[in-house]
């Protein structure tokens, strides 16, 4: 068996090297779409180049981002403009603004890219928009001031952080009904799921904590992070989560097995959105006060770059579009 296995590995390595060599230009590490609230545009960062390659005008006060590799589109919530901007991810061009009767903040796309979920900050509801035509819509009323939203990897559940109700709503995406609500800390805002969907990580802004929620049993562990935390990202093996602390100008690294903060990384002023990029093992952080994005090397937990973006960068949600291939 041994020689066969070695041969097999060698073949894979050779193929991988060849594939990379042949397709490097197309196989970029991906792009980060950073919403700039005060300049009403989106900075597109080419992750392999570590620089802004396009600036796309959108609606007023953009905040949330959702990406679809399948559709090659990026969706932006313009909370003051009361619209969703649609971006062509191949041409880095603004396609259209889709009006929303409400104030859209959090966005999430189903894994099959069929529907977009929109959290309406003031009207306490989630809108479901069919992405094939943007016309077929459903809605569900939930807790107060829905903020962060995310869909389970199997697409069956939608998790919503109800900021002013201090809880999480779990929604059945087929019937669009609330299955349950789980109390977390004070003012839950950003959230994310472990890659296997078994753990939900919720940031509690006023409690300075993250709730680690078991999505099957509902059991919760609470971990203290920095001051006024906002958003959270998870690494691909689910070992660590990274939390932005807006009033600490830091990112807390939480070890999930140990259930505690093991490092604090100084980034730019008022860090908000955060995302983990698997291919390069880097963490991208949008700094609202400094108009920059900090890049963290996940192997060292050190900031390796600071990229100038637009005014008041937020990047709320899953803002990195990975290559499809």
């Amino acid at each position: 068996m041994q020689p066969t296995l070695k041969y097999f590995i060698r073949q894979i390595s050779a193929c991988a090297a060849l594939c990379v060599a042949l397709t490097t230009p197309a196989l970029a590490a991906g792009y980060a779409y950073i919403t700039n609230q005060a300049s009403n545009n989106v900075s597109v960062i080419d992750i392999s180049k570590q620089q802004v390659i396009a600036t796309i005008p959108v609606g007023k006060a953009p905040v949330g981002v959702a990406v679809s590799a399948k559709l090659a589109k990026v969706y932006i919530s313009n909370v003051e403009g009361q619209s969703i901007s649609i971006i062509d991810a191949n041409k880095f061009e603004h396609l259209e603004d889709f009006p929303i009767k409400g104030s859209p903040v959090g966005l999430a796309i189903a894994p099959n890219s069929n529907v977009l979920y929109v959290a309406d900050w003031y009207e306490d509801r989630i809108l479901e928009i069919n992405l094939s035509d943007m016309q077929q819509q459903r809605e569900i009323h939930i807790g107060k001031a829905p903020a962060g939203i995310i869909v389970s990897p199997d697409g069956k559940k939608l998790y919503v952080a109800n900021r002013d109700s201090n809880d999480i709503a779990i929604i059945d995406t087929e019937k669009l009904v609330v299955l349950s609500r789980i109390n977390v800390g004070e003012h839950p805002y950003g959230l994310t799921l472990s890659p296997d969907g078994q753990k939900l990580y919720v940031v509690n802004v006023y409690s300075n904590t993250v709730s680690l929620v078991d999505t099957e049993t509902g059991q919760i562990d609470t971990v203290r992070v920095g001051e006024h935390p906002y958003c959270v990202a998870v690494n691909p093996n689910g070992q660590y989560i990274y939390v932005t602390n807006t009033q600490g100008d830091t990112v807390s690294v939480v070890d999930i097995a140990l259930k505690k903060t093991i490092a604090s990384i100084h980034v730019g002023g008022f860090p908000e959105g955060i995302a983990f990029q698997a291919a390069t093992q880097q963490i991208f952080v949008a700094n609202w006060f400094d108009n920059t994005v900090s890049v963290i090397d996940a192997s060292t937990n050190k900031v390796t770059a600071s990229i100038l973006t637009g005014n008041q960068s937020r990047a709320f949600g899953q803002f990195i579009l990975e290559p499809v291939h």
Partner: protein
Amino acid sequence: MKKLLTLIAMAALPLTAAAHGPSPQKVEKEIIIKAEPAKVWALVKDFGGWQKWHPAVASTKIEVKKDDNGDDATFRTLTLKDGGTIVEKLRSSDDTSMVIKYEIESGVLPVSDYYSVFSVKPGENAGETKVTWMGRFYRVYKLNPPIPEGQDDESAIKAVTGMYDSGLAALKKIAEGK
């Protein structure tokens, strides 16, 4: 009856209004003062003594009491020269970094969820100080548009800008002994 109506109004409000709006605003102001940082910091760190330099403040009352989390915290009530008051909570004050952080609990400034960082640093030249005052806050209005006049982002930014500009100019004057 009037009391009852007020109670009803207060009870009805949270059902529709979010804790704050969705778009934070910022103001950041900086000034170079020709005085030693220690002298400027002594004026700034005195949480109960901003009337000594800020032209809008008439007097300050300091209180130590429990905050929402049940922890002891320092609060101040600023009485403004035009008669209004602002209640603020001291978040932290650090002599080493010369940074003071505070937030507004309530008051006449047309803002909500206001958080501020006031930083004192040595300037580029000897005997100079660089002072930075920054705030992050939301407008007062917490519902969908139309936004009433005086409760919008512009009103909030204008009020904070006015407070920072007038305060920093006066701080410079007093610290420089003019």
